[in-house]
Every structure is written in structure tokens, then in C-alpha cells.
């Protein structure tokens, strides 16, 4: 059996294990170790497992992950989760589709705290969906906007997905954060444009809510000002080189604690709760990262990526065509794998090919996360849709999926734009020198 065939068999077994419900990190790690045992030797595989696991858990750079998670959990405990929608609704709610626009703004703002798509859609939907339904919004349109808006949580910095990508692809997390800002903002604008077009074509989709006077709007801004300043300070400071990503996260934790104290709600149970939630999520991600690094080592030994790269080169396809095919494969895999599994399975295979085609690894990270985000809303997996359905059981799944279609079209156009114009991703990290 050639190493390439062993590699393909490994990928097949990994997909089988994941489908059968084996934890993602465990599946990746076992296939990685088994593959290395076959291709090198069982002793080498065992030692590699020991080296990789300790190196991973003692990596300074990985400290960024639990610390950003802690910052997010402290912000949740401080009650900052729903304010973004409330404030945006006061400013644009009186326009046609205004509450849907506000939900996109709320998702972008909350995404900057949570770094997670499902947390974003769950939190914003819990406050925005009842408001939109009360205002007479079409259920499919309202839930479609929320499901799509929730995906912003995976891209807007400090994104958990980008941190994991940065670690497994050995790329600068600061550059990835900087690179995600313009695509994140443009994605939000695409969704807002979609809402505006839909409401112009069919005003009944999102009727106007009563106008909130300016004397109520400006004071409402105060509710999110502290969080906005904290995010700006942490991400801005990271981009202009005041601190490293891990330091930025530490400063963010202290800032979040200060903000919580100023809001007057700090309690020991609240703090312990934030610490415990952080540890549970951190533990799950560490297992996945250790598994992913072992799997990536195995894939690099098989030479599969070299084989695929030369196949792409021999095909004489243009880089854009090749990356578009890659996007299609990712979207197909995203139909039954969740985002994290998709990223960890495909990064070791697709990243070297993309780099050979002349794409920057930073650009690839944003492309991958953007493609992964689409998987959160497209059928049959579309986890964001199930989150919304769990919260509004009277809206049928088919209605929500139909409501998502216009936003999916916007997603595909936006993804195409990122592929055609990589500068959208690479301009800001270049300027900021992150």
C-alpha cells in the first residue's frame, strides 16, 4: 500500500468515525496515530503523540484561546449580551425591515464578544425574534435574517474559529483578526442590502416599527459604549502592536472585569461560573487541537497534498477555478460535518494546495471560515436554523430554510468576491502591520 493510499484510507476512516459519533478530537488523533504507526513505526507514533500533546498544552500562544473565552464569559455575566440589538433597534427599527437590520447589527456586535456563531444566533434570536414577530414580520424572513446574521460570530474578531485555524496552520492570530474585519463588515453590509432589497420588493415582509425619539436613542448608546470601547481597545491594541494576542486577551479579561464592576454586578458565583464555562469549552477545544495536529502530521507524511497539488498543476486550471472547486468541496462536506470538524479535516490537505496556487495562508483562513459559516445555514445540517427552530417551534423548518435562501445567495456572492478580490482580506493586515 502506498503512503498516498494509506492517507486516503485514513481520511475515509476519519469520516466514518466522525459520522458514528466519535468525538472529533479523538477521531483525528486516533487516525493520526494509526496512520503514523503504519507509515513510520508504532514507537515513533507513540512518541509523536507524547511530544505533540505536551507541546500543545504548554504553548504560550495557545493561552490566547482560554483567555479570550474568559473575556467573553465575563462580558456575558456582566449582562452585555442583548444590548447591541436593543440599541440598533432604537436607531433603525422605524425603517422598513429595520428590526432585521438591527438584528444583523446585534449579531455583529455580539459576535465580537462571543466568537461563536451558535452563541450569537441563540442570544440575538432570543431577544430579536419575539420583537420582529410582534411587529408583524414574516416568520421566514425574520428567522432567515437571524440565522444568516448569526454566522457573523465566526468571523468577527476575536473569532474562536480563526484562533483554532491560526494555531493548526501556524499563522499569526493578530493578522487573521485584522484580515477578518473588512470581510466581516462587508458580509454584514451584504445582509443589510439583502434585507433592504427584499423589503423594497415586498414591504409586508418587514413592516416599520414605531419611531423612537432621539432623546431616547442617544442615552441608549451608553448601554454598549463600554463594551465597544473594550473591543476597540483589545483588537485595536493587538493590530497596532501594543500587545501580543495572548496579552490582548489578558488585558481584555481585566477590562471585562472592570466593566462588570462598573456595571455593579460582580458576584463570586458569577465569576466562578465564568471560569467554569471557560474551562469546559477550553478542554473541548484542546482535545480537538491535539487530534488535529496529529492528523496533520500523518497527512503530511502521506504526501497526499503533494499529489493533489501536482494534479491541480497538471490540470492547468486557473487558481480561481481551483479555489472555487475547493469551495464546492467544502460546502458539500459542510452538509454533514460541523464547522470545526470541517476546518480540522481540510486545513492540512487544502492549505498547502492553496499556498502552491499562490494564495496567502491568511487569505485561506478567512476563506475557510467564510465557507464554514455558510455550512451553519445551508441544509441539511444548518445548525443555526435548528437553534432558531428550537426557540420558535411554531415556525416550520421549511419556512426558515426558505427564508434563508436570499441570504445564502448573498453569501455566495460575497464568497465569490473574496475569491476574486483577495485584497479585501489582505489589505488591512498589510496596512496595520499586525
Amino acid at each position, binding site marked *: 500500500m502506498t503512503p498516498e493510499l494509506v492517507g486516503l484510507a485514513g481520511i475515509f476512516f476519519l469520516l466514518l468515525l466522525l*459520522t*458514528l*459519533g*466519535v*468525538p*472529533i478530537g*479523538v477521531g483525528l*488523533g486516533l487516525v493520526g*496515530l494509526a496512520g503514523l504507526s503504519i507509515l513510520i513505526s508504532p514507537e515513533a507514533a*507513540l*512518541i*509523536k503523540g*507524547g*511530544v505533540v*500533546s*505536551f507541546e500543545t*498544552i*504548554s*504553548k*504560550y500562544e*495557545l*493561552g490566547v484561546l*482560554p*483567555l479570550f473565552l*474568559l473575556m467573553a464569559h465575563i462580558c456575558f455575566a456582566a449582562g452585555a449580551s442583548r444590548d447591541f440589538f436593543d440599541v440598533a433597534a432604537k436607531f433603525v427599527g422605524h425603517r422598513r425591515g429595520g428590526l432585521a437590520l438591527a438584528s444583523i447589527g446585534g449579531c455583529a456586535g455580539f459576535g465580537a464578544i462571543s*466568537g*461563536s456563531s*451558535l*452563541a450569537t444566533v*441563540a442570544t440575538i434570536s*432570543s431577544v430579536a425574534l419575539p420583537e420582529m414577530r410582534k411587529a408583524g414580520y414574516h416568520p421566514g424572513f425574520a428567522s432567515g435574517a437571524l440565522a444568516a446574521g448569526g454566522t457573523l460570530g465566526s468571523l468577527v474578531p476575536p473569532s*474562536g*474559529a480563526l484562533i483554532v485555524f491560526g494555531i493548526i496552520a501556524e499563522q499569526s492570530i493578530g493578522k487573521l483578526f485584522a484580515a477578518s474585519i473588512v470581510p466581516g463588515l462587508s458580509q454584514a453590509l451584504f445582509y443589510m442590502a439583502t434585507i433592504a432589497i427584499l423589503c423594497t420588493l415586498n414591504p409586508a415582509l418587514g413592516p416599520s416599527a414605531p419611531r423612537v425619539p432621539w432623546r431616547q436613542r442617544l442615552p441608549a448608546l451608553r448601554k454598549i459604549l463600554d463594551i465597544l470601547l473594550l473591543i476597540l481597545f483589545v483588537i485595536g491594541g493587538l493590530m497596532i502592536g*501594543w*500587545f501580543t494576542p*495572548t*496579552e490582548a486577551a*489578558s*488585558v481584555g*479579561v*481585566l477590562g471585562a472585569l472592570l466593566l462588570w464592576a462598573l456595571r455593579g454586578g460582580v458576584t463570586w458565583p458569577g465569576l466562578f461560573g465564568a*471560569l*467554569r*464555562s*471557560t*474551562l*469546559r*469549552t477550553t*478542554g*473541548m477545544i*484542546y*482535545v480537538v487541537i491535539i487530534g488535529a495536529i496529529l492528523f496533520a502530521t500523518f497527512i503530511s507524511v502521506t504526501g497526499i497534498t503533494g499529489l493533489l497539488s501536482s494534479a491541480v498543476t497538471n490540470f492547468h486550471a486557473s487558481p480561481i477555478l481551483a479555489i472555487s472547486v475547493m469551495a464546492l468541496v467544502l460546502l458539500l462536506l459542510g452538509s*454533514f460535518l*460541523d*464547522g*470545526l470538524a470541517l476546518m480540522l479535516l481540510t486545513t492540512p490537505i487544502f492549505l498547502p494546495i492553496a499556498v502552491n496556487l499562490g494564495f496567502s495562508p491568511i487569505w485561506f483562513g478567512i476563506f475557510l471560515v467564510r465557507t464554514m459559516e455558510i455550512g451553519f445555514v445551508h441544509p*441539511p445540517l444548518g445548525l443555526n436554523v435548528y*437553534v432558531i427552530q*428550537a*426557540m420558535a417551534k411554531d415556525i416550520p423548518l421549511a419556512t426558515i430554510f426558505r427564508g434563508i435562501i436570499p441570504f445564502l445567495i448573498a453569501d455566495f456572492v460575497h464568497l465569490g468576491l473574496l475569491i476574486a478580490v483577495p485584497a479585501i482580506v489582505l489589505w488591512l493586515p498589510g496596512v496595520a502591520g499586525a
Partner: protein
Amino acid sequence: MTIHDDSSDFVIDDEGQIGREPATAGRVGEAAYLVGSLGLLVATAADAIAVAGRHTGIHLLGSIEVVQSAVVLIASSAMVAATIVGSHASVHILTERLPAGTARRLARIAALLSALLFALLAAGSAWVASELWSGFEQTELLGIPLRWLRALWIAAALLIAFLFLRAAARRSP
């Protein structure tokens, strides 16, 4: 259907309520939370002090080594905590549609495979640690002994393997 977020610990339950994983951790879990929380606070303080020092012209050396050591505490205890509450990320698209008995059998196999992986990681780490033990490996500036951190990780990996084994044994086929 309960929806679990693989990148945070948000849960939407059958009633559509947003909640968090239950924190029924037992004594081992409480110890893991304590060690991990200590690590998180130490890492936060060390880096924040280093940043403040750098921007006020007082350079404090060794913060990276302190954070590195704290990260070992965080990661080891976090993996134990995640195992105790069963919050490891997995794909549910097939298992949710299977009959309960088949799903339980698959869960038992998954737990056994998970125990195997952590036992292998513990064995590999123990092999490496035994080779380096007599070298008194330590960090450059502060001289933090790494062999005790390696020992902590090996103990955590063995504990996780045991927890998965126990979970496999408890699930009735």
C-alpha cells in the same frame, strides 16, 4: 432536540431555553476547576502586568514562562472538566437518527476509543518524560521545572482515559 455548540458551551434545550452545561462535577471535577481557574487567573495577571510594565518602562522578564506554565494547568484541568461534563465536540447527524439502543452502543464504542487515545497520549508522554527526567528540564529565565508539568499532564491524560472507560462501562448496551 438539544443543540450543543461545539465552540462554546451554549445549549438550547427542548423548551428552546438558552442555558449552559450543568456543572455536576464531583470532587475530581471541582479539583480540576480549581486548578484550571487558578491557571486562568495567574495567566491573566502575568500578561497584564507584563503589558503594564512594558508600557511604563519597567520590563518584567519571565512572564511568558509563567503564562506557559499556567497554560499547562489550564489545558490539563480543562480537558478533565470537559470529559466529566461530557462536552467533547462530536458530529450528531447520524447518531440522533438511530434507535436508542444502537446510539448507546455507538456511544460506548466512542468512549472506549476516547479512552484508548488518552491512554496512548499518556504512554507517549511518559516515554518522553522518562527520557528527559534526569535532565532536570527547566525554563530559561525563571527556572520553572518542566518535569513536574509533564507529570501533571500524564496524570491528567490517565485520569481522562479512566473517566472515558468508566463512562463506557456505565452505559447499558
